[in-house]
């Protein structure tokens, strides 16, 4: 697999990839699949219509990791991709996705990716998605990921969604439908700086008895950036749901947290927590008494918060 330095750098940032990964993978760069590998248990094929992939994971596949990273280094490139993940019953796998855009030109680069997960009974997946932007051109780096999760009985999905740096505009939309006994855990981390804007919208429908969701979004808005966090859980059965927006604002950053809970069943138990504030003065002072400057202390606190 021949990669240029920008591709290597972006793949390292978003998927922690150095060289050819173990397991199944598809590496997409500037709208082309530059390398792909299926395994005995994980089959990756191009969609017959439109741009995107079908990723089929056989039932009871255990311990495999699937890599589906996307990198864009051409200024002005805009693409829409639909990837479907079919996770067989009883499988237990990790899926590493993410998109990195390097834009050194003056035209906007944009990747709108839709990931749909069809998670079979008793299946368990860990999904890691990192978004990253770099390049010093005037063109924006725009990412609008849509994640749809359809969970069968007693399945488990853990999602780590991270956007730490360099993405100018993003609208992140996540929708999940959970059947009985299934559980969704989301840990989202967002940092915006400059005049970036990020919208994160979750709608989680707990449709079956014993379904559960725990959605935690931590955000830091620096400089003149803006974040809107719109987290909604709908309880349609005897279920448990928890959402938490925990945010730090700095400089002229602005954050709007819009919690929403909808209980349509008397046994639905739903909780929302939201907190927005600047870095606590006592935290800065504590780290300064350890010999850090105020700026170093701030950086440590943010790095920890977004870990």
């Amino acid at each position: 697999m021949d990669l240029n330095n920008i591709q290597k750098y972006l793949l390292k940032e978003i998927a922690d990839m150095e060289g050819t990964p173990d397991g199944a993978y598809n590496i997409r760069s500037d709208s082309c699949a530059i390398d792909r590998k299926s395994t005995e248990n994980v089959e990756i094929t191009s969609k017959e219509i439109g741009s995107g992939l079908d990723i089929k994971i056989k039932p009871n596949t255990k311990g495999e990791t699937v890599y589906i990273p996307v990198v864009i280094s051409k200024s002005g490139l805009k693409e829409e991709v639909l990837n479907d993940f079919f996770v067989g019953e009883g499988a237990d796998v990790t899926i590493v996705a993410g998109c990195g855009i390097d834009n050194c030109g003056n035209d906007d680069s944009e990747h709108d990716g839709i990931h749909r997960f069809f998670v079979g009974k008793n299946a368990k997946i860990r999904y890691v998605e990192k978004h990253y932007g770099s390049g010093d051109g005037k063109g924006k780096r725009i990412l609008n990921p849509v994640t749809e999760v359809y969970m069968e009985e007693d399945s488990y999905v853990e999602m780590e969604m991270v956007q730490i740096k360099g993405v100018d505009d993003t609208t992140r939309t996540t929708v999940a439908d959970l059947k009985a006994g299934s559980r969704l855990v989301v840990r989202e981390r967002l940092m915006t700086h400059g005049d970036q804007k990020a919208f994160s919208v979750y709608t989680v429908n707990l449709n079956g008895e014993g379904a559960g969701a725990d959605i935690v979004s931590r955000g830091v808005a620096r400089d003149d950036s803006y974040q809107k966090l719109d987290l909604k859980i709908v309880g349609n059965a005897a279920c448990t749901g928890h959402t938490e927006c925990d945010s730090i604002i700095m400089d002229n950053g602005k954050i709007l947290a819009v919690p929403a809970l909808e209980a349509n069943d008397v046994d639905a138990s739903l909780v929302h927590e939201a907190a927005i504030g600047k870095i606590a003065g006592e935290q800065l002072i504590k780290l300064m008494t350890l010999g850090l400057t105020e700026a170093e202390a701030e950086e440590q606190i943010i790095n920890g918060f977004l870990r």
Partner: protein
Amino acid sequence: MLKIQDLSFRVDNDGQDKEIIQNINLEIPAGKLFVITGPNGGGKSTLAKLIAGIEKPTSGKIIFNGEDITEKSITERARMGIAFAFQQPVKFKGIRVLDLIRLAAGKKLTVTEACVYLSSVGLCAREYIDREVNSSLSGGELKRIEIATVLARQSLLTVFDEPEAGIDLWSFGNLIEVFRQQREEIKDKTILIISHQERILNIADEIVVLDSGFVRTQGRKDIVIPSLIGTSSAVKECRGAQKGEC
């Protein structure tokens, strides 16, 4: 080691000036364990914060190892060798015990090296090293981690602001052992503890009694402790502490 010269600290209290520290003069030599005691509201914690640079004095000077540090920042003082243990340990989301000890030491300690500091405050190190310094830890655990981070500083002057506050009796017994150990290894360093706990007063070389912002008494513990018995509010604090009320 530390000289405090004509130090005053005033605050605006509903439009009226309130003097928390009033023209204090103190000299604290190296190689000693000093305890500053006195009734609540007497200015003890404020004095500790003035030494660490967390508060700025209204007037007067603080000299550390011959250098005037009155205008120096918290960071500068920390780098010169002043460590400060908070009365109420600060909590952090996402920062682990290991991270905090490494920051305190100013170098990337191995897990084993960091665990030595946790063990010295009576914590089963491996159980705590990867935990976040957040609300999931009890008051006693947080306090002991706070003290471990301060020990990792290896500073010339270490100031403990009411280390007994908010901890259980078992943790307190362990804390006394930590201070005894520190006392044994003190050499050219200085330990300054703000406390009204009799067991802490008993391990001091010298005691300063601070009341209403003034130094009421200063001297060797064998002279100062008897003078406290049956007198001012500082004694009530000591008796309260004996009953485990601290």
